[in-house]
């Protein structure tokens, strides 16, 4: 309980302080009352550390309590696919994951769980990505995704090629689902952001690869959309993705995108990366299937520079 209180104070203070810097007195007022600050579809932040950028983004979206009801169960799904260290940016930045966990607990979440169905051996990925430790220290629960027993068969209602999938039980149990991809180059889909990151909540990824990968990625979004998509674009792997060969593949971009619209988040991330959203087929397909909007011009976007 002490830790909770401490975190509440620290984060509450951080948010208020951050908001003050961003918007002056108004934001402080808004953050304090908990009302939605503005009806932003998407918030993009540049120029800060991952945790600071996230504080600012959430402040402009009315704080985490706008998304996490008291007593709710939260699933935070970062990318922990590879047994690589944080400097390689093959996985989501551990600082960002920790901050999200802290925000959720501070908003009154009953529990915050974190897992990924990894590509390399899970225990090594969890450890060497720094995410296991960061989540534990932040008060979250780190859970394995490395056994078919965790996964339950569900129907994908709007799927064209993917009509069913085996999904981790935690996703089915959670009230709030926060997807935290890292923006990376991908050898085949060109880009991996939020919707591609969803492949880590299912058991049989091979089926997706075998049956029109882009279509399956878009299809799965009709099963469940994340409450929030938080794109980590602090260090961005620009080549040799998604695993990367060396730290030489990384560009420091110090950016963060938060949106309730998974397609918009991916589209904005694509732009940041330097490609047109329409060139990433699953983004285009998802937009066509009305999972979300990829036309960034029609969205209300809050752009924050630190």
């Amino acid at each position, binding site marked *: 309980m002490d830790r909770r209180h401490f975190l509440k104070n620290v984060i509450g203070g951080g948010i208020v302080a951050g908001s003050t810097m961003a918007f002056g007195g108004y934001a402080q007022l808004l953050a304090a009352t908990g009302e939605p600050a503005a009806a932003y579809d998407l918030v*993009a932040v*540049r*120029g800060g550390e991952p945790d600071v950028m996230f504080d600012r983004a959430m402040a402009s979206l009315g704080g985490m309590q706008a998304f996490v009801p008291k007593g709710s169960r939260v699933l935070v799904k970062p990318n922990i696919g590879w*047994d*690589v260290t944080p400097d390689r940016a093959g996985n989501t930045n551990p600082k960002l994951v920790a901050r999200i966990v802290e925000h959720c607990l501070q908003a009154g979440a009953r*529990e915050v*769980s974190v897992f990924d169905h990894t*590509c*390399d*051996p899970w*225990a*090594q990925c969890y450890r*060497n990505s720094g995410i296991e430790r960061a989540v534990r220290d932040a008060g979250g*629960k780190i*859970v*394995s995704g*490395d*056994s*078919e*027993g*965790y996964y339950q068969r569900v129907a994908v209602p709007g799927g064209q090629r993917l009509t069913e999938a085996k999904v981790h039980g935690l996703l089915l*149990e959670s009230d709030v689902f926060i997807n935290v991809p890292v923006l990376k180059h*991908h*050898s*085949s*889909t060109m880009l991996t952001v939020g919707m591609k990151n969803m492949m880590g909540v299912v058991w049989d*990824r*091979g*089926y997706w*690869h*075998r*049956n*029109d*990968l*882009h*279509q399956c990625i878009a299809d799965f979004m009709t099963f469940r959309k994340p409450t929030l998509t938080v794109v980590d674009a602090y260090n*961005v792997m*620009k*080549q*040799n993705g998604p*695993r990367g*060969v*060396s730290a*030489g*593949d*990384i*560009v*420091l*971009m*110090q950016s963060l995108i938060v949106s309730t619209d998974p397609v918009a988040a991916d*589209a*904005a991330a694509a*732009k*940041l990366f*330097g490609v047109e959203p329409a*060139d990433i*087929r699953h983004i285009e397909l998802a937009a066509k299937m009305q999972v979300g909007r990829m036309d*960034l011009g029609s969205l209300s*976007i809050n752009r924050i*520079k630190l």
Partner: protein
Amino acid sequence: MRPRHLKALRVGVSVMFFALIALVFLDFGNLIPPAFTRGLLYLQFVPSLLQFLHGAPLGLAGWVVVLALTVLFGRIYCSTVCPLGTIQDIIGFAARKRRKGRGLRFVRPDRFWRYFIAAITGLLLIAGSGLLLNLLDPFSASGRIFSDLIRPAAIVANNIAAGAMEQFGFYAVSRRQWAILTPLAGGVAVATLMIVAWLAATHGRTYCNTVCPVGTLLGLVSRISWLRIGIDSETCTECRRCERVCKAGCIDLENMTVDSERCVGCCNCLTVCPGDAVRVVNGWRRVPAAQPDQGRRDFLVHSGVSILGLAGLAETNATVLQSRPTTVPEAVKGPVSPPGSVSIGRFTSICTACHLCVSVCPSRVLSPSLLEFGPSGIMQPRLNFRAAHCNYECTLCSEVCPTGAILPLAKDEKKLTQLGVARFIKENCVVFTDNTSCGACSEHCPTKAVRMVPYPNPQNKPLVIPEVDPDYCVGCGGCEHACPTKPFKAICVDGNPVHKTAKKPLMHVLEIRTDDSDDFPF
């Protein structure tokens, strides 16, 4: 001298060794440091001997320590260090608890079978096949019981517990997967356990004294041991209590002798003798009888022979190693041996299939082979890419191997060790057959030896298809494991009979390392 506490000491030491060895094999979370494992297994005779014969420094020769201990105290190895010995003691103890009254009896030594089995084992080894040694070596047999029977059972129990806890929202116990179970290795482990258990329950240490080649060798050495069990015919009342608790059946009360060649030094007899007749005696003290001299003479002959044999063994294996690349037919996918095994010939001649590496492998890519390595390589672990791929960053198997079949590899060395080479079969590839994106292979490739290149297609889709540059491939099998096509993969790894060195992955460092533009591109 009749120290009664020796049995308690023996039980304590054996339980400690047994429990720690079991722990090493059942360590789901890879929590035990490899250095501890190596230290723990330092004294295991066959692994240590094989390691030595293939050029390990003398400091690693735990078997010499075992021989020295045997010269001093007889076959205490069999009652303390050997895990199979302890398995037999546990089973025998339980069996005799259930059937009170009937005890064990003196049995005449079965010298023919004992020496015959040991000789065949040795000859086969000299001829280049460790098959019989691998089957009979008590450490490896125990390893297979742990790895192929007890570990899967423990994982099932763990997963049931984890599943039950999940109902209440607890995820603290993680579900586990096991390595691919091969019926052969599992079957051999079951058969070994059943035979050993039956012998232990009904006859005592018959396995150790008739079948086990280590027991036979140490038995020969213990003929000259310093301290041994003896019976004082003057104080003995022939109550036969010692005979009834002697697992080795080596106490002959007719002649008032103890067959030290078969005595496993369990000290049970010392504890039960109501008088002072069963004693620890000095075997080196000259007694008027001609018996000890004979023993010494026998020992000299035997040890001379065995040393010659060992010398021959070391040399012959070196030549065998050269003449065995044919285990990998060109047409078939060659098996892939673990990183650090140097070559398949070398690996199969040293590995005793104890399956410790199979147990510790975090990715579960190591699994017991069937006939992939040839008939004498049965059950030796290979990389099974249907199960998983070899983690680029991992060197655990090489750090724990007790025989030196898998030599230690530094991480940087391992990353350049080419176990095999990926081969792309375009006709099976999703991109070719379906004209849809995939790239699972390239995604997993840690060196980008498998890269995606533009693929012109009839529908003019912006597709990319894999291309392999063998120079950079390390044969980790990430591509083969991830390839989703069934039943045949579109990319597979052909094992290298002799491991090679791959080129260092190309590391183009991006020119612009920091994107500090203030603007948003949207």
